[in-house]
């Protein structure tokens, strides 16, 4: 379990809840407790068919179900994290990295792929929350910047799916500066009038929320996602009061004007493709 998951327990039940049933066949919805058949859930993009609860999904799965199958090209796959500070808390950063790499099969917490969305060339980035809480270190920042650059050079839209606790403390100031780096890359994109759609998924907080994730020309949220600058626990400790129900959830952000719309995962492809078509003065793409 990463430090972030300890801080903010995943709403998808993992080990504990599924251990009572044979691994991987049945999954219990964390919201409505329904027993769900894995293949059916997969077909439903990990949205509970009973209560529409959106479970967290991995970066590659996310991109796979979002993009068309043909002609995908990964960006920055050859980048790997370093440990410039030789950081060590109760564990060495190096060890945390290799553990995360082993358990996720990813080199770091962001995957960027150029491909097509209903026929339109696009670049997509997705955060891997299981990789150290989707935290943004140098590799995440560099991959995002390269994705934005690819999108600027080819004049094709950029879409990002965020799921992150924020900065990666083990990279200290280098990590903080990724906020400036990713925002600057988006400023170049904005200058060239290339659309950037930011999709905020559960959870998006801290340095990622306070940089690239809030900078979409259109900000989209998945239902009931936790989105905020400070985590609920930090706020509770600061203001010393119980937080209202639904605080920092997508619906709260919509009501307060921080996101443009809430979109069901199963409609994400069509909704974003249609938006991009409108920006390009084109008819609605055929699904």
């Amino acid at each position, binding site marked *: 379990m990463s*430090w972030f998951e300890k*801080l903010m327990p995943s709403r998808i039940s993992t080990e504990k809840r599924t251990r009572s049933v044979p691994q991987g066949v049945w999954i219990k919805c964390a919201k409505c407790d329904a027993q769900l058949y894995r293949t059916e859930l997969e077909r439903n993009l990990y949205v509970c068919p009973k209560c529409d609860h959106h479970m967290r999904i991995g970066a590659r799965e996310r991109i796979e179900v979002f993009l068309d199958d043909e002609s995908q090209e990964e960006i920055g796959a*050859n*980048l*790997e*994290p*370093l440990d*410039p*500070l030789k*950081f*060590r*808390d*109760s564990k060495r950063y190096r060890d945390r990295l290799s553990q995360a790499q082993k358990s996720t099969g990813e080199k770091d917490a962001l995957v960027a792929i150029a491909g097509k969305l209903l026929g339109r060339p696009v670049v997509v980035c997705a955060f891997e929350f299981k990789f150290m809480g989707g935290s943004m270190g*140098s*590799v995440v*920042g*560099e991959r995002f*910047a390269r994705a934005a650059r690819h999108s600027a050079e080819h004049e094709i839209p950029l879409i990002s799916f965020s799921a992150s606790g924020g*900065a990666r*403390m083990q*990279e*200290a*100031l*280098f990590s*903080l*500066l*990724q*906020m*400036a*780096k990713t*925002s*600057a*890359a*988006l*400023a*170049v994109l904005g*200058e060239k009038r290339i659309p950037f759609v930011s999709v905020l998924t559960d959870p998006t907080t*801290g*340095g990622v*929320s*306070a*940089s*690239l994730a*809030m*900078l979409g020309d259109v900000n989209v949220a998945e239902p009931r996602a936790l*989105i*905020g*600058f*400070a985590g609920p626990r*930090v*706020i509770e400790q*600061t*203001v010393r*009061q119980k*937080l*209202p129900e639904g*605080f*920092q959830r997508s619906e709260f952000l919509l009501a*307060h004007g*921080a996101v443009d719309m809430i979109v069901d995962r199963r409609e994400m492809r069509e909704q974003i493709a249609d938006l991009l078509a409108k920006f390009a003065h084109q008819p609605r793409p055929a699904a």
Partner: protein
Amino acid sequence: MDLKFLEFEQPIAELEAKIDELRFVGDDSEININEEVARLKEKSRSLTKTIFDKLSAWQIAQIARHPMRPYTLDYLEVIAPDFQELHGDRMYADDPAIVGGIGRIDGRAIMFIGHQKGRDTKERVRRNYGMPKPEGYRKAQRLMRLAEKFSLPIVTFIDTPGAYPGVGAEERGQSEAIAFSLYLMAGLKTPIVSVVIGEGGSGGALAIGVSDRLLMLQYAIYSVISPEGCASILWKSAEKAEEAAEAMRITAANLSEFGLTDEVLPEPLGAAHRDPSAMAEIIRNAILKHLDDVEALGIDEMLAQRQARLASFGQYKEN
């Protein structure tokens, strides 16, 4: 003057107390007081130097947060006495945790923007301990655009524990306010010089710190999270702040080694609060020098270099 000595400064404090006592002894004493005072003063100086030569990261963090440390408006009083403060974000409120306005150094008009902490309890509460809310960042954005419109260079002073984590701040879009500040500063067509004068606390600091030149005072700190916050998450105990401060490399000297700051400005013996006007003079000269350098580039080259600088942040391996 009550200097409010920190714990590791106790030997200096005792010596200074002795010097004060001697001053009250008066002229009727047998021994030559003046000579003795001079001797003790010299001893105090060398003791201060010895202690300050080998400060730990945690001790430096305490100096950066010292209750006597000069704040943005203290420096502005000295370096730009004709400073006119401009208030409000035109949308919601005026956030006293960020101050901004126009003042002249050497006849050159400059837009100054900085975090502002309070000196006494009442003022601290009013300034929210230097922790801005979204309206603070939006005021800063407004003033930055104003500076761009009239070709005024921008100088920012960074000194905050971080952006305020509160219910109202979340409701009004703290994330967006910080994110958009970063976005705006990346492309702003006027020179920006940032100086970390005290605490550079996370995104709340960076939100006015995207710049052409980043300067740090010798005993300023800059980090992704406070040592206490880092310790309570990674070490599961805020008591380990000392270790976290060391591990995160938060001091000006550390960050300079990584090439993350352009110049470290030396502080007077015993830190900035011992001689605020000397410190102000050093800051003033550094601002002028760096503004000259950036202005000499011309706007296009300046923006290209700023973009290249922002793109270069980070350390990774490429296979």
